[in-house]
């Protein structure tokens, strides 16, 4: 509950900061719509030549695009801006102020930046998902929907832990923003089912940079492609990642000595 209350506070700060620039909403809406249209047009080109991509039907790939926008929106809404601020605050020494606050520092650091316009991406992704689901029809049952919600949460936890671990490296190294950019460019690969990629790339997108857990696995849950072992494995991995990133964060904090702000 405390998380939600704090998140709400930071969200309001984000809204107040951005409401001064209202034209941004129109520009961002335009850019998000253009990005979505580009993704769908790319699919149209490909599905003009085939009616199945691997084992995926067109509507299923559209659902994947919806998941891609939804998860990408969540990353861009709070994870990425917060982590960027955090890295900057380590370099500048302003992390001292966060550490003196009476809340858990990891929590504060993880939600301190909210990029409100990314809500547009979340809404668009959700819309695409709903349309694709409508077209997939009764193939999506209660079990699939539950597995989807679970995998979305687990995938979100894995991606969050991954970002936190990378960002925590900034206690030891100065320029870690660059590593974060790698995730951004690799994330693009998540617009397609990772099962299409050759083994080495699939491995990299699953375990080195967890793009597969962010997009493909939830979409697979939705389209009834997941067996219970993978579901349990993903939840297990999410739990392990959360614990490991927490421990690593603690080690980082112990190592940190403020350069005086």
């Amino acid at each position, binding site marked *: 509950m405390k998380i939600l209350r704090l998140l709400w506070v930071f969200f309001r700060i984000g809204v107040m900061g951005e409401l001064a620039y209202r*034209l941004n909403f129109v520009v961002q809406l335009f850019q998000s719509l253009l990005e979505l249209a580009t993704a769908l047009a790319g699919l149209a080109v*490909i599905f003009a030549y*085939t009616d199945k991509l*691997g084992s995926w039907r067109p509507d299923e790939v559209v659902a994947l695009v919806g998941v891609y926008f939804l998860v990408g929106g969540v990353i861009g809404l709070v994870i990425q801006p917060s982590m960027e601020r955090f890295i900057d605050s380590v370099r500048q020494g302003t992390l001292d102020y966060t550490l003196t606050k009476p809340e858990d520092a990891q929590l504060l650091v993880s939600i301190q930046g909210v990029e409100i316009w990314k809500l547009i991406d979340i809404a668009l992704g959700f819309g695409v998902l709903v349309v694709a689901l409508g077209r997939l029809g009764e193939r999506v049952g209660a079990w699939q929907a539950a597995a989807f919600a679970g995998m979305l949460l687990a995938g979100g936890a894995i991606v969050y832990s991954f970002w936190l671990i990378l960002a925590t490296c900034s206690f030891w190294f100065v320029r870690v923003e660059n590593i974060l950019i790698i995730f951004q460019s690799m994330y693009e690969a998540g617009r397609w089912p990772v099962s299409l990629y050759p083994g*080495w790339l699939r491995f990299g997108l699953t375990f080195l940079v967890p793009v597969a857990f962010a997009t493909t696995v939830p979409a697979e849950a939705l389209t009834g492609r997941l067996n219970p072992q993978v579901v349990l494995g993903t939840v297990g991995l999410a739990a392990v990642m959360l614990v490991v990133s927490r421990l690593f964060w603690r080690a980082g904090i112990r190592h940190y000595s403020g350069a005086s702000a």
Partner: protein
Amino acid sequence: MSALLDLYVQHFKTSLAAMLQYRASLVIWLIGHVLEPLIYLVVWSVVSNTRGGRVGGYTTGEFAAYFIVLMLVNHITYTWIMYEYEYRIRHGSLSFDLLRPVHPIHSDIADNVSSKLISLPGMLLAAVLLALLFRPTFHVVLWAVVAAIPALFLAFLLRFLVEWTLALAAFWTTRVSAINQMYFVALLFLSGQVAPLSLLPSPIQAVATALPFRWMVSFPVELLLGRLTPAKAMAGLAAQAVWVVLGLGLVKIVWRAGVRAYSAVGG
């Protein structure tokens, strides 16, 4: 003329030294630029394999060849000048460039070429690795490879002029990211990044041919792959030359108008 040559040589040296300081960013840049063609290579290979090894005049091996060559041609012609200009104009550092007695486009070209020379070995290595992994089919046509040399040069020049002009939009608006995105979407479809142009609907092909996009990337790729007849190659080179001349004129007009609109305080 020799003064200009000296200028280029000096710029090469300084930007080489600067680039070598940021090797990590070069690697990250490389990942981004290999990944996109790689994704489409994989997708089209899958499509081609499900359709019995051949789609729209391309076999699976020819798709691999197409996207590997596309990656290299993109590397040669790519620019990032729009991000630079946005920064220069917003921060006013352009004022210093304006004080110099040479047109600033020369230092931008020198920077572009030198940074590409540094990343070229990495790019070639990536191309070799992809070739080993995806076993592309190349049909080497000697005259076409020779003709591709001027085609690549003109493609580089044309794309540089177009994107440099686009970068100057920052003189008039601070919302260049929306403009850039529109340009990139057009580039994605019209220069053959998503699929070889011959696989797109014919109205889109017509648009790509009428605008400079095809001549910036797709034409040299098809030439290198030996997919063009001599007549088409000649027509393509001519189209490139015409667009380069138009581009030069455009740069001149837009630059003059932009500098007039520009004002900075302090430095």
